[in-house]
């Protein structure tokens, strides 16, 4: 019998005890155990970016991260971005610029963008395109997504949090 370990995961500032076997991915722990389904399962093999979360501020693929490896880290999911109901500048920009159609890829895009703008304050268009290239979208054709990211750069430069 494979025994479960009880992990203490810090998710969006809250500590949660999650019992899982070592082969449980962070994506499975978030969706199936913590019931945070904002992070999506797309390809499940790291090619689509839909499962992107922040681990100690770094954008990572939850489908290729073991839950046990996330213990001791600050995990931030899409559910944790808004501050007391106020959307983050990145979330607002995506809403305002029509960058969300079916919404399935959007959490991944927003989390990647959040990490990117924390690393590079004012990326140019090509830098945005290159760094978001790991997030796939079947609906939008990407134009509105790139415009939303550029707008988010402006919002953050204007001091919005």
């Amino acid at each position, binding site marked *: 019998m494979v025994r479960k370990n009880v992990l203490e995961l810090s998710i969006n500032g809250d500590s949660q005890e999650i019992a899982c*076997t*070592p*082969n449980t991915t962070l994506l499975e722990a978030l969706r199936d155990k913590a019931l945070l389904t904002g992070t999506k399962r797309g390809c499940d093999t790291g090619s689509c970016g839909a499962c992107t979360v922040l681990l100690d501020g770094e954008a990572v693929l939850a489908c290729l991260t073991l839950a046990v490896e996330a213990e001791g880290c600050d995990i931030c999911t899409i559910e944790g971005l808004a501050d007391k109901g106020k959307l983050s500048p990145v979330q607002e920009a995506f809403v305002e610029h029509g960058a969300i159609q079916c919404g399935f890829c959007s959490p991944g895009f927003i989390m990647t963008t959040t*990490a*990117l703008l924390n690393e590079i304050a004012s990326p140019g268009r090509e830098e945005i395109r290159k760094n978001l290239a*790991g997030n796939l979208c079947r609906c939008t054709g990407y134009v509105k997504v790139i415009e939303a990211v550029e707008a988010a750069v402006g919002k953050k430069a204007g001091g919005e949090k």
Partner: protein
Amino acid sequence: MHLPIFTYQQPADFAGVVAALTEASEAKLLAGGTDLLVNMKHRIETPGTLVSLKKVAHMRDVSTEGDATVIGAATTLKDIRQNSELKRKFPALVQAAMAVGSYRHQAMGTLGGNLCQNTRCRFFNQSWQWRQARSLCFKVGGEDCHVVGKKHTCFSTYSGDVAPALLVLDAFLRITGPHGHREASLSGLYSGKGQSPLTLGRGEFVNAVVIPGEAAQGKSRYEKFSIRGSIDFPIVGAAVWQGAGKVRVAYTGVDRAPVRAAELEAELAGRELTDALLESAAPLAAKAAKIAPTSVHPVSFKRELMGVLFEKALRAIS
């Protein structure tokens, strides 16, 4: 896709890693997981034990020893990308790190993991369900190579971006194992056999990469051709280094290991690098490799690409 069941170990130091790798019957190192965990989901690798490098000290250090640069094997590709000293001294290394996968792969993936990644083939890197349509290939325990139509051979292709950059920088490795520490050439890490691409012994692991000071005296560049501009492995990747009258050229995506283009290098050594010379020498690049059709591109296309990327890279730094 669920991962198969395994035992997970999280050692705190090098001795713990060696012990964990040696004691388990089938153990693999877990660094970023961006190669291994995908293969495990596809059931083409099913180690019984994963040995995590997460808590092992000093594996993410970047330091100097005299004029040499030492990079811990668990240094992430993003760490490399953000290191201004590495960018200044070894542009090809940073360019190669930035060419790997996506933004997330670079945050998770490590230098050692990229060097030690498994070889790839369009018949091998597929899900368990996909592979049921034909007999098991030799690399996963069957008899057949579906690429070349022979038995008991494997032509899977080494496809890491960083290796050719480090080859032209003349980098070498520090390896730890049951018999202690040793240094080894980077080219010596690769067996040239598709079924078991690495020469590491049982219990051994790469703990650091060392780049000699001489490498910083020249100019270097990495050029990659892939199907898409991001995410994808290289169809062909070429690295060049130029300095002190010498040119070093290495490739990925063209053989079962990364290769140096010895004949091409010999043709260029000590000579003025005119356009005419580069154009006439470029076809020699393809002699460095035994290309198999493991991707969807024809072999002839990849041969030509080797010359094209070599010229593009060398012109960029000359």
